[in-house]
């Protein structure tokens, strides 16, 4: 077993890993950029090393520096978390070259599954359905033939590209020529290669994924599916386990497919196989994420498996301590991602100081967070502040507990999407589990004004606060340090009998 592991990440996931290491009695080494020195992942670790300035490419993406620190600290292994270097096969190889275990799959598997075309071929070879599509095409005639064969609507995608760049949806044959011409121009401009490929546009679809874990001895265990159809700009926002539409038969088929792909890719460690599921209950492989997933807690709460602990164990060469038949699933879990974005201002990221962070708790609630009072939210990293997972004996039980938890969650000083999440949880479609990947695109944020009851409370509070009619004299210094006058006045008030101004009249 490892004696010491470096965690090459930050925020809530780094803290999650530090905690798992502590549970395993393995020493943890945190790394931090200039702006993260006070983060909980640093404070809760056994050791901590500064690795550079705030921008990720100079710190959390700095392979050389991270490996240097790991060797200096005497670590045996590196856990990459998710994001940053987690799917970087060069990093995995560099770890190996430095004599450090990379806690993740073998670099070859990462490379194979990271290449779109190769991953698709792997899935086909494993008898897993992929989205009907063409090879690379460069002539309009070939594109038209492919589209006719596949059937409209189709998507045109840059063969050399990635992300959403150059993607065009074509609903009917008469739209094809114009769309293909523009898409080829864009592809050439963006990637230097005009080649396109044509893919069936499936709609409506659900995003369903299967969690797997594999050891080095050929044991591959699927640990249930997750439903991740609630997405905004391709960012998952609410995930659940299990899916409201996956029954035992479909679950078995999905799990078998996921295991076949993992086996075909010589995979070990944790991974997630993503599928699209259409209304007729057909599923299609999209891609495999070769790392721990943000939404892993929903699986953990329903199955009782500790994915982070177990991925460390299998990376250390241990055999999986359970097989599929031993895993008992129980109840339902829903996760909400709390991000620093303002839902009432076009989802602008909000930065600044969190004056107060009070997290929810109580039965069925798990919070993964690196918030603390006084944390500065900076523009350097993604906007994820915390994850709340709610467990219930059934979906409605998890949903109501999630609402309770989000109502308890206070983040003052920085706008979050909590009110938006509360709105989504109350839509009839979400309550019914009737969701697909376009759900949030269709959903309009309710721009709620304060209700009369709130306005009255706020006015009365402002009145009592400024008039000094605060019980017990607990008056705080104003945050606005510029207004020294106010501060002085408050001090005078305090000398005249505290905030209990009323008592002195």
């Amino acid at each position, binding site marked *: 077993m490892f004696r010491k592991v470096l965690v090459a990440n930050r925020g809530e996931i780094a803290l999650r890993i530090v905690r798992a290491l502590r549970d395993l009695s393995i020493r943890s080494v945190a790394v931090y950029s200039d702006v993260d020195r006070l983060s909980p992942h640093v404070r809760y670790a056994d050791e901590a090393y500064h690795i550079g300035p705030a921008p990720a490419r100079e710190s959390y993406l700095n392979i050389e520096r991270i490996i240097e620190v790991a060797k200096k600290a005497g670590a045996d292994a590196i856990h990459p978390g998710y994001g940053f270097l987690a799917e970087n096969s060069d990093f995995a190889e560099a770890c190996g070259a430095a004599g450090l275990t990379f806690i993740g799959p073998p670099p070859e598997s990462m490379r194979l599954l990271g290449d779109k075309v190769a991953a698709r071929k792997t899935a086909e070879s494993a008898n897993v359905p992929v989205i009907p599509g063409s090879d690379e095409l460069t002539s309009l005639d070939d594109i038209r033939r492919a589209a006719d064969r596949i059937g409209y609507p189709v998507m045109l995608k840059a063969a050399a590209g990635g992300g959403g760049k150059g993607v065009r949806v074509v609903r009917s044959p008469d739209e094809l020529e114009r769309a293909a011409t523009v898409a080829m121009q864009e592809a050439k401009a963006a990637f230097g290669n005009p080649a396109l490929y044509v893919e069936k546009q499936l709609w409506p679809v659900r995003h369903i994924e299967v969690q797997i874990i594999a050891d080095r001895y050929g044991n591959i265990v699927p640990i249930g599916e997750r439903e991740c159809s609630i997405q905004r700009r391709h960012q998952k926002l609410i995930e659940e386990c299990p899916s409201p539409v996956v029954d035992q038969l479909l679950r078995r088929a999905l799990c078998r497919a996921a295991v076949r792909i993992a086996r075909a890719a010589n995979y070990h460690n944790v991974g997630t196989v993503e599928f699209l599921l259409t209304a007729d209950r057909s599923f299609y492989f999209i891609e495999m994420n070769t790392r721990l997933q943000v939404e892993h807690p929903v699986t953990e709460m329903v199955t009782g498996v500790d994915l982070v602990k177990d991925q460390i164990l299998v990376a250390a060469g241990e055999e999986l301590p359970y097989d599929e038949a031993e895993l008992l699933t129980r109840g339902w879990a829903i996760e909400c991602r709390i991000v620093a974005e303002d839902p009432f201002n076009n989802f*602008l*990221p909000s930065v600044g100081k969190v004056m107060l962070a009070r997290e929810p708790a109580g039965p069925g609630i798990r919070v993964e967070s690196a918030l603390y009072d006084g944390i500065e939210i900076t*523009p350097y990293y993604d906007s994820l502040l915390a994850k709340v997972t709610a467990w219930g004996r059934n979906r409605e039980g998890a949903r109501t507990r999630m609402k309770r938890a989000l109502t308890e969650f206070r983040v003052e000083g920085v706008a979050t999407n909590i009110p938006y999440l509360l709105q989504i949880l109350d839509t009839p479609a979400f309550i019914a589990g009737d969701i697909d990947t376009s759900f949030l695109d269709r959903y309009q944020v309710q721009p709620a004004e304060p209700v009369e009851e709130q306005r009255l409370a706020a006015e009365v509070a402002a009145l009592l606060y400024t008039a000094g009619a*605060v019980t017990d004299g607990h008056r705080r210094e104003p945050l606005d340090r510029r207004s020294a006058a106010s501060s002085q006045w408050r001090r005078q008030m305090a000398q005249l009998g505290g905030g209990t101004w009323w008592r002195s009249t």
Partner: protein
Amino acid sequence: MEKYVVSDGNGGTATYEVERLAGGEVRVRREGSETWHVAQLEAVGDSGLFLLLLDHRPVELYIQGRGRNGAVVTIGRHNLNYEVERWRPSLLRRQEGRRRPKGAAEVTAPMTGTIVEVLCAVGEHVGQGQVLLVMESMKMNNEIRAPAAGEVTAVEVAPGQRVTAGQVMLRIRTVSSGEEENPR
């Protein structure tokens, strides 16, 4: 019995009668209403969190003082900015004067980030809500929209430029009702 005027940032005002009770409780009535409310406000620790008990309803609020008479009250998702003054006959009239919007608007950066695209030019007339700029922050592109209809009078940023939160990026002369007069 005291009387106070509570003004919000948007020109709305309400007058309250206030009477003290035993044990730190207060009776308040909004002018125009028949209902007296029983209220008690207390700080929860030193963090800015307060508990208001209003007619037996507990309400958590976050309050930041602003100057001698001001308070920003956060309730649920709402940030409400108040000024509170002792009531005087002349007060309401002055409050009225404040209500009208000014004829100019500044578009400031809502967060630190980098300008990706500028989608308007000086002299251009823009509609309320029209996208003026795209800026990148936290690995995401964000559209900055016009707060009001008007004419762009200055563009102070360019693509690729780094801006900090609060920095003025554009100026707009608005064409709303505020243009006719500008008291004092």
